[in-house]
């Protein structure tokens, strides 16, 4: 037990160390513009050690930028699941609805956030709602599809119980279909949140909105490359934390 515990801590650290080594090697040889891990840390220190300072719109601590991004993602994610969940239920419940909209969904699903964003800007004229719109449009598909699959894979015995009891459509939905589908819906939520976070960078880069992605793009333009790496690491860590958090919520739901 002790050994495996050690391994579960040491091995990931070893992986990270190896990655830092490769990074250092690359910055010393083929990409001299790439700051080394050490230089990245030196230049990022003020942003990390004082994560919530604010010296103007585009010069803030990394914690503050992350918070701005998270709020934006929360809005987009909320919109995504508010639209995606009912849509998924409709797709799962109605053959007609499924036939009508499934091809459309399959076409919309692979469209990149970079393509949606200009459309959002045209529609809303402002960058903030355009970013939220883009996040929602990209992130909602896993929720839609998982919910629809969940509805279609409900144990037929459950539905038979409802039929024998002659439950009304509303009660059938409330007492049987929705609770039976919830574990699938939650898996959809988790995947959707992952995508929402993935999209944040692209949407902030294009709109120039303050946040981790906006900061990344600004620092690229200002040639402060170490801050690009700081942003990348921050995005990764937060994405990982979000996924773990949703995983816990998901499991709690499944065992309930």
């Amino acid at each position, binding site marked *: 037990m002790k050994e495996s515990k050690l391994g579960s801590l040491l091995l990931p650290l070893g992986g990270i160390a190896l990655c830092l080594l490769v990074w250092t090697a690359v910055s010393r040889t083929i990409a001299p513009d790439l700051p080394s891990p050490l230089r990245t840390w030196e230049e990022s220190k003020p942003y990390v050690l004082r994560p919530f300072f604010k010296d103007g719109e585009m010069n803030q601590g990394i914690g503050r930028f992350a918070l701005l991004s998270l709020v934006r993602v929360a809005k987009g994610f909320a919109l995504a699941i508010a639209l995606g969940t009912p849509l998924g239920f409709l797709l799962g419940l109605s053959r007609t609805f499924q036939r009508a909209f499934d091809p459309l969904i399959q076409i919309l699903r692979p469209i990149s956030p970079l393509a949606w964003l200009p459309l959002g800007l045209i529609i809303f004229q402002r960058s903030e709602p355009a970013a939220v719109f883009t996040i929602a449009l990209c992130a909602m598909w896993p929720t839609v599809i998982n919910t629809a699959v969940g509805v279609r894979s409900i*144990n037929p*015995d*459950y539905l*038979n*119980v409802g*039929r*024998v*009891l*002659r*439950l009304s459509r509303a009660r059938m939905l409330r*007492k*049987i279909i929705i*609770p*039976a589908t*919830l574990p699938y819906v939650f898996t959809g939520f988790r995947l959707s949140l992952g995508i929402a976070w993935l999209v944040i960078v692209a949407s902030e880069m294009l709109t120039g909105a303050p946040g981790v992605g906006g900061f990344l793009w600004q620092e690229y333009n200002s040639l402060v490359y170490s801050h690009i790496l700081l942003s990348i690491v921050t995005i990764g860590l937060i994405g990982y934390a979000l996924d773990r958090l949703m995983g816990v919520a998901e499991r709690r739901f499944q065992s*309930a």
Partner: protein
Amino acid sequence: MAFLSLRGVRKSHPTARGEHVVLRDLDLEVNEGEFVAVVGPSGSGKTTLVSLIAGLMRPDAGEILLDGAPVTGPGPDRGVVFQNYSLLAWMSVLDNVLLAVESVSPELSADERRAKAERLVRLVNLGEAMHKKPHQLSGGMRQRVAVARGLAMEPRVLLLDEPFSALDALTRASLQQELVRIWMRERRTIVMITNDVEEAILLADRIFPLTAGPGARMGTPIDVRMPHPRSSRAVNLEPAYHEARRSVLSFLVGQRRASLGATLAGVGA
């Protein structure tokens, strides 16, 4: 006229290799208050028979009448205890039963419905587990919940689809006793499907043997002339038990020989 009657019922499923006939020209007559068992080997279409009486499936031909009225769809007047219990996993024991009570007794107040559901849960000796979720229960306890829910439907016919097949011998014996106790108290018409001849003799007034599928048919019913409740030990000393057992087995075995013979003849030709 019988309380529940099936006449010339036929059911088939379409398959890739053409039509698969599950039940053919099936007749069944059950009197009110009677406990009837349908015994057949696995694959003889027993669950299909339950689904037909429950109205979850429609027969291709023939008719199913309950108290003279044709069965056109599912309803709580034919309460089903499903083979795999089918308890709603996200509801407590009480809520599973309550859902059935709510559906058949909308005229009662919330308190009255709850009291009724609680009474049924106690009737199947699950008072202690009232607020547990199905995954916290043993197989035997889940089966009791399923029975309580079946009774909560206040069915005119209670359909039991291999109710005890997934249980260990001890649990099965105690649940069988309990079922008879409840039946003697409530005097509901019960149709139980089983592949266990001993179980059928222990519980039922009459036994309908079902031939092996495909195209299963019903044999002549066999009366079990023994008073209830029957204990499995005492029953062994009754000549009536052995008589009934012999009749059912000789029918089922005879059928198997006949179908085996037909198969062999087919191979020979």
